[in-house]
């Protein structure tokens, strides 16, 4: 047993040694230790280097408030975590940790040179320098600053751990399992309510764990809670309080286990909705601000008590205390009773509680009232302190190996503050406490300001006979913010605490100011000659403690990041070697390469097959909405630009949907199945949006219409057969439909059976060829596809993908909403003004088409473009100009929206939008690329079968 481990004390299992590595050095602790307690037991105080000045630092606290002892924890490849507080690392076998932000070693850190230059680095120094020469900021200064900054190691490998999440619904959530939280749980446990008690520590009990006198009570209480069915979660941190009783909490599941034995998810996010929430989050002890208060061995008094009683560790052999609050005395008494030498208790107050004085006297402790510590000594650990009576220069030195600070208590009001709860200044506590009411949420215990024992004073920095600007008295230990930095900020006109925080970075370190916010506020208030509440409080932000990205991302990764929608024919396409593309949430076959074909070769072959024989295309991703009811035609009439009432059952019509702003939103073919029933199709990406828009109008604008809307997108597989021989492929399998051109002409619709299953058959074409779109129940889709594929072999059938579909439709000048239109085109712009019912008095978007800007002749209009060089395929997105080689900024009159090599025509074709384009047909325009300007001729946006004769095949 080490010299600092106290036999017979603590809640740990000293009989079970645990081996760990600290900066490569093998050490031993005990089961139940934290890394912090184990290091102290080994006599290690130096645990880190500070952010800016690389000053040696030791443990300040024993919990999440710890600002100094940040470690890199290595649990194997991809499992390195930076910036973990030693006070929260549970010791386990094979624990491997490294200190951070030092080179070459913790003991000898070259970065400490910055400490010598620190007069040049006051708060905000970077705003005042590094401006000359101008170019040096990016090439010299900033790279140097970046290298110096940062704390832990940057990540470089993918974390193999899993993270999970669950929803919890409870009547009462209690955050914090100290005395107050446990009492609240006990009180509620008899009610039969669903009660959940969560605490960030490995063990429930909070500060009771450092109070052996209450251990029996604690054990009994926890048993009663267990018996009552209260859900108690340890290692679970409430990270934020959100709207309407919602709390996010993260439970750490495996980090306390040796890597070899850790299984299952590493962390679990709890999304808790609670009818009532009790915040019993306790309070954190406040350090004191004096010269060189950052030397290793200078700690919070309460931390020393925790190390003593919970871990059986002495923080030193000769301990001094600097107190401004009564609560420090109990620590001194406890340490003395444990046989630890007390060098002195220095108290800034002149008048002390007689009972405390008496007790100190009984224990033989030296008590120095009305005095303050004005400095500390030692290199990498404190070896002594200098103190002076208040207002006096008669200094005195005392040797010690630890200095404990008792500066009072700061209620942990973070969650209350997340919930926008009001805070009020409690003069007696020298702190903000919850004030007023919050829906669902109450505070109890120390968090509510009910702090015992004793009283204290809460000054800014401790008085010193020296010039306060001449020494470093740290307020924010992690960010190296000193009291003089804060005074400098005030001097420079930063008057609000929010400004001071940002200028000095006080409270912005990874501990989020748990020990520095109030001290910073007090120092600022002193400098401003104001009271603390007048200077204000910075807003607390979630999370309470740093939270793993993975825990918040959860299982939403890789394939589960977003579900991929696949059609029932996807597996067939995959087996055929299709190359896929993502279209909205869907994965669609882009082309079906054979052997060594590239995309161009495959697309050329697929195009030829459709133009000369027959092609087969999976169109299942098209959105489908069933519009049903006596007013179905009236409803579509109001939604779409087209007239619908005269459309006969058994007929289809191209439908165009605008936003109320007059711009094209979506399009698709709709068939009238019966007087009161339409099958409406939408774009692949637009299905949900269109249905939502329809529902909106139907429910809120026209509730008088008797119409029902149902999404049927996933109910039907859609197989498009396109090409002169399309009829031959389906004919042998169709029952109950006369497929002849007379009975089923272009834009006709029929119902029957195919391959023995029910079918909705559309005689439609997005290729310009004879075409059928076979809709069958999705469950039969693959079987029908395979049957038609087999049938088609006699006709040379070819499967084609979206790329060929794009080329074929471009040859015909059919637009794709979202590619040729971009949310700024009207029907007339897109050359589909014919789809607007001229006699209709109203439809969605109609009024906007009459706005002044919609009538201008120079609006961008859809046209075709033919390059002078027939082999050059314009780049989609390329810009169009009418004057070549104009100086920058070059006036642009349009851009290429679709561009392909057309195998049918043996040359390139393009669609474009060009200002006043339709009046420019026949003109020469230019497409300037980075390397060359291409000449193009404006044409009709129609390149093939101008008469449309092939549609009627």
């Amino acid at each position, binding site marked *: 047993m080490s010299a600092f481990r106290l036999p017979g004390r603590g809640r740990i299992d000293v009989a079970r040694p645990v081996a760990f590595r600290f900066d490569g050095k093998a050490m031993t602790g005990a089961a139940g230790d934290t890394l912090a307690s184990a290091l102290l037991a080994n006599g290690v105080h130096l645990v880190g280097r500070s952010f800016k000045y690389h000053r040696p630092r030791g443990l300040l606290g024993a919990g999440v408030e710890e600002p100094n002892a940040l470690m890199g924890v290595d649990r194997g490849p991809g499992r390195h975590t930076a910036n973990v507080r030693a006070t929260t690392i549970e010791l386990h076998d094979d624990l491997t940790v490294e200190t951070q932000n030092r080179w070459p070693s913790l003991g000898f850190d070259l970065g400490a040179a910055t400490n010598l230059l620190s007069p040049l680095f006051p708060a905000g120094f970077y705003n005042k320098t590094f401006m000359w020469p101008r170019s040096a900021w990016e090439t010299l200064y900033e790279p140097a600053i970046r290298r110096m900054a*940062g704390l832990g190691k940057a990540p470089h490998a993918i974390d193999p751990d899993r993270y999970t999440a669950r929803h919890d619904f409870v009547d009462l959530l209690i955050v914090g399992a100290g005395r107050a939280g446990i009492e609240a749980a006990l009180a509620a446990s008899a009610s039969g309510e669903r009660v959940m008690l969560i605490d960030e520590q490995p063990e429930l009990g909070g500060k009771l764990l450092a109070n052996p006198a209450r251990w029996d009570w604690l054990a009994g209480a926890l048993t009663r809670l267990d018996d009552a069915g209260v859900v108690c979660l340890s290692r679970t941190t409430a990270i934020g309080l959100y709207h309407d009783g919602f709390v996010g909490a993260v439970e750490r599941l495996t980090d306390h286990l040796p890597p070899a034995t850790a299984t299952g998810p590493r962390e679990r996010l709890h999304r808790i909705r609670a009818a009532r929430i009790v915040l019993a989050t306790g309070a954190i002890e406040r350090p004191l601000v004096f010269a060189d208060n950052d030397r290793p061995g200078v700690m919070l008094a309460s931390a020393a008590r925790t190390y003593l009683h919970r871990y059986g560790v002495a923080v030193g052999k000769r301990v001094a205390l600097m107190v401004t609050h009564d609560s420090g005395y109990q620590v001194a008494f406890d340490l003395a009773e444990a046989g630890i030498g007390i060098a002195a208790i220095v108290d800034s107050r002149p008048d002390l509680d007689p009972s405390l004085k008496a007790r100190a006297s009984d224990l033989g402790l030296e008590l120095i009232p009305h005095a303050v510590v004005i400095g500390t000594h030692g290199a990498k650990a404190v070896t002594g302190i200098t103190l002076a009576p208040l207002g006096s220069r008669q200094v005195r030195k005392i040797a010690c190996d630890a200095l404990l600070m008792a500066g009072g208590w700061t209620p942990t009001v973070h969650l209350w503050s997340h919930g926008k709860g009001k805070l009020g200044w409690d003069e007696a506590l020298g702190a903000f406490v919850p004030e007023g009411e919050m829906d669902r949420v109450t505070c109890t215990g120390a968090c509510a300001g009910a702090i015992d024992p004793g009283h204290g004073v809460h000054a800014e920095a401790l008085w010193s006979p020296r010039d306060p600007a001449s020494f470093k008295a740290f307020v924010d230990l992690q960010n190296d913010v000193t009291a003089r930095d804060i005074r400098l900020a005030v001097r420079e006109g930063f008057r609000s605490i929010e400004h001071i925080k940002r200028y000095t970075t006080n409270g912005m370190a990874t501990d989020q100011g748990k020990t520095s916010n109030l001290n910073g506020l007090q120092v600022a208030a002193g400098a401003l000659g104001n009271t603390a509440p007048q200077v204000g409080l910075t807003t607390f932000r979630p999370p309470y403690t*740093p939270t*793993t990205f993975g825990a918040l991302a959860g299982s*939403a990764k890789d394939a589960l*990041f977003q579900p991929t929608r696949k059609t029932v024919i996807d597996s067939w396409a995959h087996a055929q070697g299709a190359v896929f593309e993502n279209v909205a949430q869907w994965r669609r076959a*882009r082309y079906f390469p054979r052997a060594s074909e590239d995309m161009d070769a495959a697309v050329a072959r697929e195009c030829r097959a459709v133009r000369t024989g027959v092609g087969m295309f999976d169109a299942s991703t098209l959105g489908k909405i069933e519009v049903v009811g006596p007013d179905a035609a009236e409803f579509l009439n109001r939604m779409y630009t087209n007239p619908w009432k005269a459309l006969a059952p058994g007929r289809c019509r191209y439908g165009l949907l605008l936003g109320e702003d007059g711009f094209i939103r979506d399009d698709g073919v709709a068939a009238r199945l019966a007087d009161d029933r339409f099958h409406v199709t939408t774009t692949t990406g637009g299905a949900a949006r269109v249905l939502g828009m329809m529902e909106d109008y139907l429910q809120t604008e026209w509730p008088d219409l008797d119409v029902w809307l149902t999404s049927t997108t996933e109910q039907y597989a859609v197989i498009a057969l396109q090409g002169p021989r399309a009829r031959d492929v389906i004919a042998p399998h169709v029952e109950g439909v006369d497929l002849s051109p007379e009975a089923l002409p272009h834009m006709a619709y029929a119902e029957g059976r195919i391959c023995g299953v029910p079918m909705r058959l559309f005689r439609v074409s997005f290729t310009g060829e004879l075409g059928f779109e076979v809709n069958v129940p999705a469950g039969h889709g693959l079987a029908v596809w395979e049957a038609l594929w087999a049938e088609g072999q006699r006709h040379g059938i070819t499967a084609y993908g979206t790329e060929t579909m794009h080329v074929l439709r471009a040859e015909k000048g059919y637009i*794709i909403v979202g590619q040729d239109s971009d949310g700024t085109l009207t029907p007339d712009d897109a050359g589909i003004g014919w789809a607007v019912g001229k006699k209709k008095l109203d439809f969605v978007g109609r009024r906007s088409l009459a706005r002044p800007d919609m009538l201008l002749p120079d609006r961008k209009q859809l046209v075709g473009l033919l390059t002078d060089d027939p082999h050059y395929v314009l780049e989609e*997105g390329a810009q169009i100009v009418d004057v070549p080689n104009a100086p920058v900024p070059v006036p642009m009159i349009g851009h290429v929206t679709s561009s392909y090599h057309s195998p049918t025509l043996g040359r390139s074709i393009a669609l474009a939008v060009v200002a006043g384009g339709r009046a420019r047909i026949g003109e020469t325009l230019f497409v300037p690329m980075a390397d060359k300007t291409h000449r193009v001729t404006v044409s009709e946006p129609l390149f093939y079968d101008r008469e449309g004769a092939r549609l009627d095949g």
Partner: protein
Amino acid sequence: MTRFSAATLLAKAIGHHKGWPAQWPDAAPKPSYDAVIVGAGGHGLGAAYYLAKKHGITNVAVIDKGWLGGGNTGRNTTIIRSNYLYDESAFLYDHAVKLWDGLSQELNYNVMYSKRGVLMLAHNVHDVQSFKRHIHSNRLNGVDNEWLTAEEAQAYCPPLSIDPNARHPVLGAALQRRGGTARHDSVAWGYARGAAALGVDIIQNCAVTGIRRGADGAVEGVETERGFIATRKIGVSAAGNSSVLMDMAGLRFPLESFPLQALVSEPVKPFFPCVVMSNTVHAYMSQSDKGELVIGAGTDAYVSYSQRGALHIVEHTLAAICEIFPVVRRMRMLRNWGGIVDVTPDRSPILGKTPVKGLYVNCGWGTGGFKATPGAADLLAWTIAKDEPHPINAPFNLDRFRSGRLIDEAAAAAVAH
């Protein structure tokens, strides 16, 4: 004004830095000003600075209901870029980028503008088409923006995953090398110091409670918590609170205010060299000089002034970040906060005159106002000084919502088919 330099810093260090004066005085309101700017963010303070510097109008007050720089200026993810599609937007944002370059020297205040490059990721064929369109348009407008293959993008930003089997694989990226970041607070402070040195009064904690108009309808001044302040020219630059202020002048605006969240990680050593944005996956990230990953989250769906958002927005954001940069999965979120962004129907700003004589507005920047700070400030100052918009901001008028001449960058990138 004490000139900032390494030499001054050294000199002051000898005196324990006791010799630094206030960077700006905390002014009390005077009875009247030639112009009053409402909103002491970067835009408003900058407008006051340029009014004084370029137009000689120094009898100016900037008033704010809180502390200067306490709104969106201090809450954003500091991304700067100008690779916008439409001419109007490209000219507007590039005007700002040109001013960013040299702003530290102009203000004698290091705003830490760092041209580390902004990468915008293309994840599908539609993205590629859209980004190419941007690149070609930018080239002809003299705005730098170049296409990178996925491999080139990863070389530029090594933590980027270009796994072709990813749910949203990276097919390439558009890179604006002049894009980057700046230190947000410093921008507000630098303009405040610069403006104050030219005679501008910066009045904090003084909420405007009304806008007084005369019989002719023109503005006569602002009512504030600290009394009436007479002025003939009011520039409103109040971001999320613009609707509230316009309402005081009897104007209703095409604006809605939404919560926008952002977050930072704990600081680690530098490994993420640039800014990366993905509209498809909804993720935006850079690494600050301090070492924190700075991440833009999404907007919550509903109108709100509460400056708080929901956890599920953060969950989605971090899932997206981890999808694109899988190595950051074990990093830890340090702080998460919300701002209020005011959004117009075409998601482009309104910057110019209003129907009320003497009332000028700069609002509707949505999620992208920081990058425009010096440009918007300069143009607002011009518009106030001349009582007419500069050609660059003329298209960003209020009339466009009536005429239909919208500047809709987001629609132009619309996803469909």
